[in-house]
């Protein structure tokens, strides 16, 4: 695929537009958290936006592995589980241990990072920093585990790698549910009462929606930078042809490992954010079905397209949890429809997915990116009525 080259002025303009739009988005989110009136529209919008942002990060992290490095891994749910648990375990307040670990005499880990920081830095800053530190710890745990299993597993190819990573995800789930580790993981029971989005505030100002967007944007930006670096080019070379890449002097194992570990780090971060969003977590939820769902979003968005993954995440979550809910309610626009009953929403949803997969098999974005530099060029061209048409490629996604 050829990369369209942009002039420095186009690039600069593109970047400015991206920053402006991003800033506008944050202002809007802030208003949504604090100022805008709560009606049935904004109330539903907020959780969908939060979850959409979290899923964007998770899908981009999977895309890094599957779309950019060509490593077919199905272990995402497992790494998310590690991240979610690591986050929760280190941020449950001391006073809550007895209640949360009700069957395990309060557990063994008896400290909470946000709480410790709060006692030094004050409630607001402490909660924020504590949450960020716990999120990083969550990512590190996931990355560490990935490094551990990467040594044997990355020797496998394509489908064998997929089934081995899927197997590891299932093993992780079984281990986290095991009573023997109950004093740490709480066995089969929920973890709760840890720092969640609603604890992120400054005085009376709430940042519940801004926070997940902030972390997700930051992480996605890091991934974009990685992909556009020399490492990213090596990843793509491995994806396109392993043998050729090796012949060109790319260290296959090192780069595969790097991609695997980094992807897992961000999956762990995503898991931690998901834990914050849900306010409770349980290992039972992190099934293979969750990995399939993420893979589905990645492919619908376009394998190898970061902006595609983000767009698809928001659409997927909104359709699944918001827009299609009316199909379950037995009536449409006040008219009672007999086959609109429980479960019909999911049937319609899966039909939509099939239609997208069959008729747009390369996904929403293919392997291209949403680019403002490309948009500017197109607009300019329209003004000067230039005949040739080229696809918009490259540039920075947001």
């Amino acid at each position: 695929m050829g990369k369209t080259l942009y002039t420095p002025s186009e690039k600069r303009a593109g970047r400015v537009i991206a920053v402006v739009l991003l800033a506008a988005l944050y202002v809007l989110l802030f208003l949504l958290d604090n100022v805008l009136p709560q009606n049935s529209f904004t109330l539903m919008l907020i959780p969908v936006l939060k979850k959409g942002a979290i899923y964007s990060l998770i899908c981009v992290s999977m895309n890094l592995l599957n779309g950019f490095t060509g490593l077919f891994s199905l272990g995402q749910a497992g790494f998310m589980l590690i991240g979610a648990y690591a986050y929760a375990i280190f941020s449950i307040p001391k006073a809550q241990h007895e209640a949360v670990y009700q069957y395990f005499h309060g557990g063994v880990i008896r400290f909470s990072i946000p709480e410790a920081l709060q006692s030094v830095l004050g409630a607001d800053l402490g909660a924020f920093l504590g949450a960020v530190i716990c999120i990083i710890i969550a990512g590190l745990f996931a990355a560490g585990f990935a490094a551990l299993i990467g040594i044997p597993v990355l020797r496998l190819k394509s489908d064998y790698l997929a089934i081995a990573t899927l197997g590891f995800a299932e093993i992780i789930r079984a281990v986290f549910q095991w009573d023997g580790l109950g004093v740490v993981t709480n066995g089969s029971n929920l973890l709760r009462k840890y720092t969640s989005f609603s604890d992120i505030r400054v005085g009376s100002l709430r940042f519940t929606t801004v926070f997940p967007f902030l972390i997700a944007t930051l992480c996605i930006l890091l991934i974009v930078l990685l992909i556009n670096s020399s490492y990213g080019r090596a990843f793509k070379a491995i994806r396109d042809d392993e043998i050729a890449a090796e012949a060109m002097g790319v260290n296959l194992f090192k780069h595969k490992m790097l991609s695997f570990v980094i992807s897992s780090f961000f999956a762990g971060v995503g898991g931690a954010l998901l834990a914050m969003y849900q306010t409770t977590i349980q290992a039972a939820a992190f099934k293979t079905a969750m990995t399939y769902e993420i893979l589905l979003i990645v492919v619908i968005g376009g394998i190898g397209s970061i902006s595609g993954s983000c767009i698809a995440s928001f659409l997927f979550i909104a359709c699944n949890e918001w827009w299609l809910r009316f199909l379950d309610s037995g009536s449409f626009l006040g008219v009672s429809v007999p086959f609109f009953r429980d479960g019909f929403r999911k049937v319609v949803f899966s039909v939509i997915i099939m239609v997208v997969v069959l008729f747009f098999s390369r996904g929403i974005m293919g392997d291209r990116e949403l680019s403002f530099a490309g948009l500017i060029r197109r607009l300019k061209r329209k003004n000067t009525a230039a005949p040739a048409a080229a696809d918009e490629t490259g540039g920075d996604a947001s």
Partner: protein
Amino acid sequence: MKKLLALLLALCMVLALCACGSSSGDAAPAADDAAPAEDAAAPADEAAEAPADEAAGTIVIGVYEPLSGDNGAGGKQEVLGMQYANAMTPTVEVNGKVYNVELVISDNESSNDKAVSAATKLVAAGASVVLGSYGSGVSIAGSDTFAEAGIPVIGVTCTNPQVTAGNSHYFRICFLDPFQGTVQANYAHDELGAASVAYCLGQLGNDYDQGLINYFKQAAEALGLEVVTESFPEGNSDFTSYLTNAKNANAEVIFAPTSISYAQLIIEQAAAQGIDIPLTAPDTWDSNVILAAAEGTDLSISVSTFYAEGGDPAFEEGFKAWMNADATALANNGGNDTIAAVSVMGYDAYYVALEAIKNAGSIDPAAVMEALPGTTYTGVSGSIAFDETGDAIRDTAFIKSADTATGEWTFVAEQSVG
């Protein structure tokens, strides 16, 4: 590509429009569901029908229940009770004004990650009070959303102590796991004659199963029993090995607090293997599916539950007639009109909610929350009052056993913890 994007955007817009449309459309279902029922449920609603026309407004009661996923079957039965109650009493009088009561149902898919958006749907619908959910995990997961919106919730059959502990907005009308675990252990020891070994089997990763086993074990060990516990992974269908393990451990009783679909398999395989150890289980097994599986076998199966059939014949007659008149309701109950205890609990929960609204004298959630601790109500399942944590004050559970010849429950005993 451009065409595609345009197409997608158009699709999104259409869907968004639908979503807006649906918020008004949502209002209809409860009324629609009630419509066929009104023909069947003869006595009560003639009186209620008249003032409904000149209602001062509508009050929304949110129903936060799983209609799909692992607990879909139980959740549907619980909703049936609420729908029937709504059909019987579709209005409530607050400060001399009559309000129509509308049930807005939100499916939490038995899944913690869908809990937040499902709960938000009810907040967005303007619920004054919420009922649910079947399953403690989703109840806890949705709890914070309701707390933030200041909406009180009445748990119907979520039995985990953590649901209400430390919350001022969550109430519940059923008994708790520690109570039920102890009741089961006492019953196994006193009535089933278990003197040395009990075998517990639960699903790995399911907090309901593991919690009850934990309390059962505590109580049973205090009674001098040795307790062997095992867990099976999710999606397991072969229980012969576990049953063999129970036999090899010389267990005198098998306590299996599993969900219904596993229960069915356990019963089937126990029958095929000729297991003669009595099986005992908590409220999840109180289902006509279990009766159907147990019919024609030689097993001894008993359950502890919230309600024993025959407790209120007038209610049962009305409920059965209502279900038989509505094909969807009948299908949601598993195809026959056996009354599940969870339906009874759903029915009572609806009336507790109405009682609280009346006491509050307002449809404001905050007022309802304030009125709830002092609300008492005598329902079909017994008298309901709340203690300081918001739990129902209940000290008895009903023990029933499956009559394998007729496929019906027979009442055994009322068991309480002294």
